[in-house]
């Protein structure tokens, strides 16, 4: 008995004392970080999942909503417009991001080689990114008017080919899609340009010199040295831009309001419409949960590629 009382751990009294223990106290920051995480990210997510299970149109008070299981998910999956909007969004994102990559890459390559006026070029090429999307949308809606500046610029190019240069940028279903893609390209090529410019700047010049000494031509150096080494930058640009482009919304609202018909209705706009115009909260929540799963798997795929690329390129420090 006596021995037992002696070896029993002494319990400090009170919460403060408990917290003050080394093994507890060092966990406090983690608790706070995790708490913030739960509050900021997990809570709205859980709420969204909860709402997605409800039968709830917001034109009825929330008090009348009830859990109806996965009905909303079934309806989202069964809704052709959801799939059309999703497909359209991938098409927009694919076209826009491809153009942004090619243009941004070419511009970065040219500016990287330029000796004079580099700073000026960089400043000019970065302006579009700084412009507020609403302003971009407004400006483009004026540029795209069928008797407007863009068609006037195109007229001398198109007329010799027998094409009337009154492209209906905002009302022809396909032209309107490209109107949105081009507005996005105008605004976001800046970003890919910036990413690639820093990518080019970070390429070790010795590698290129080594290839030159070995007799590689400019094209061979570009194709076999620069391009593969810029792969991380390319992946970063693709992931960032794709993430953004999949959320394409402003231009679709400002330029065409999803029209004509629904030919420029992106998935973000579809969601906005379902929730904020049609008040279909449960349906919208289910759709956004599905999209979250889809998009996050895409993004993680991209990040996985990036990490793998990085690991391969990493130079161990301090050889020997």
């Amino acid at each position: 008995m006596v021995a037992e009382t002696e070896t029993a751990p002494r319990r400090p009294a009170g919460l403060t004392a408990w917290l003050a223990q080394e093994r507890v106290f060092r966990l406090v920051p983690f608790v706070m970080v995790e708490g913030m995480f739960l509050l900021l990210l997990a809570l709205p997510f859980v709420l969204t999942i909860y709402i997605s299970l409800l039968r709830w149109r917001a034109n009825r008070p929330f008090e009348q909503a009830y859990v109806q299981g996965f009905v909303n998910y079934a309806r989202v999956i069964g809704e052709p417009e959801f799939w059309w909007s999703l497909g359209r969004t991938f098409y927009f994102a694919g076209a826009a991001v491809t153009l942004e990559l090619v243009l941004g890459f070419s511009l970065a390559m040219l500016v990287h080689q330029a000796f004079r006026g580099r700073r000026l070029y960089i400043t000019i090429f970065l302006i579009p990114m700084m412009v507020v999307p609403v302003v971009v949308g407004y400006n483009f809606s004026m540029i795209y008017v069928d008797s407007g500046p863009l068609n006037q610029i195109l007229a001398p190019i198109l007329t010799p080919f027998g094409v009337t240069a009154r492209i209906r940028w905002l009302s022809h279903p396909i032209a309107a899609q490209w109107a949105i893609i081009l507005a996005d390209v105008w605004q976001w090529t800046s970003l890919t340009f910036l990413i690639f410019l820093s990518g080019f700047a970070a390429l070790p010049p010795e590698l290129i010199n080594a290839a030159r000494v070995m007799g590689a031509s400019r094209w061979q150096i570009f194709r076999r040295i620069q391009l593969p080494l810029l792969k991380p930058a390319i992946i970063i640009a693709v992931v960032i831009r794709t993430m953004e482009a999949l959320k394409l919304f402003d231009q679709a609202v400002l330029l065409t309001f999803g029209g004509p018909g629904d030919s420029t209705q992106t998935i973000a706009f579809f969601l906005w419409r379902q929730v904020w115009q049609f008040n279909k909260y449960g349906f919208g929540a289910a759709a956004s949960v599905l999209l979250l799963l889809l998009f996050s798997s895409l993004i993680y795929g991209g990040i996985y590629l990036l990490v793998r690329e990085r690991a391969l390129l990493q130079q161990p420090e301090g050889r020997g």
Partner: protein
Amino acid sequence: MKQVRLLAPIALCLALACTPAQAQTLPGDTVEERAINGARAYVEDHQLQNPSLTILLISLFRNAMPAYAQQWEELTGIKVNFIEYGYTDIPSKIMAEAIAKTGQYDVFNHFPYVVPDAAGAGVLMPLDDYTERGRPDFSGIEPALRAQQRYNGKQYFFLLDGDHIILVLRKDILDLPGAKEEFQAQHGWEPGCPETMAQWEQLASFFHTKKGDTRWGKTFDQDLYGAMGYRAINFSYRHFPAYFGGLLFDQDMNPLVNTPHGVEAIRAFSSIVQYMPPDIQGWGTPQIYPFWASGQAFSVMSFPSIVGYGNKNPQTQIVGQQLSCIVPGVMRDGQLVRRSPQAAGTGYMVNRHGKHPELAYYFLQWFTGPQQGDVAIADPQGFWDPMRRSNLDNPAIVEKFGSQFIETTMANTKYAISLLMLEGNYEYFNVLDKNLAQVMQGNLTPEQAAARIERGWNSVTDDVGRDYQIESWRNGVASGAYLDTFQ
């Protein structure tokens, strides 16, 4: 007997408690006076310090509104603040308030068709108890416009905008020497305001002129489009009922669009597009108004404020050349049926979750009252359009709009109808818009579109709740909001 004995004291209590309140009408000879007195009394009774109201305002009115806010503050000591948003954003703000119940707004400023969803969600204050005491005056407002202020038997909305669509023609083109005679020889009637949509299309076709052509002694130095109208997504639905000329559903909420009559309406709606500017499907007001004012079209079907724009805008080329027309109609069973949808129509609602709904109500009654409302309509900075009989005789309003326009728009008011006053109406509208666009793009025939619209509308009805919708629809039709009745 036992029951009666139990109920009697309760009934007596209720009667005693309610009777004085019901009977009590606010003092004042005019609508505006009663509103001012009501507001003052409310502030006094509740001993409010620095009372204020916040309006969720359509940003278009940011220049015109502060003068009235100041006036109200001088009259009552109640300060009025504004939170501005574009009109496309406001419905979502109202619905968010329905859930969040923050009370940060006292008054919502939007269009009548937002009422069903908002009232259904419980964010709008029914105003009947207040009107009982404040006794607003809606005389001189045509029944359909008046009916728009109510939903399912309750008043939620105070209208201050006769925003039903009209047709405007170009007088100067009509008057070109020989034009009228040539037209009459071709079509057998003297050109002018058309009676029917078909006649409008004849006009559009006849006056549609290519750049460089010389007709009636005039060489056209730019294209003259025969017609203009709203054909973009989010706009088509505001005009389509004019081509349909009747109730869109029967009394059991079965859509009536997939009928020979509906198909014809769809055909007419898209057929005239061939005389419109090629980009019309992408145009909203910011494109349509300046284009019209630049003189490049012969006719336009639009919100009535386009006439003021055509006369007053600094860049306009068509001052004094606009001929306002009553909306053309369609023939149904041998009868000409004209229907002018209330395409927007600014008005005001009270937030149920606001701190002082009653106080907010008094602002509505004052601001939209027969005298005060006319002041606003006459305001050169405002976008409120004539809507009361009294507007015809108001010199300031006549000065602003021109008497020909006022007479026409007031005549047009007789044919004004509500857009769908149903919950989920945005979704009904969207189904309509999308399918009309497909027809205009040549991807669907009017018959196919009619069938799709019918299917789409039925699925919205089922999703919102068919029984509920049937009841609302019957109430709306009975209130006269659509002029037509069930056959």
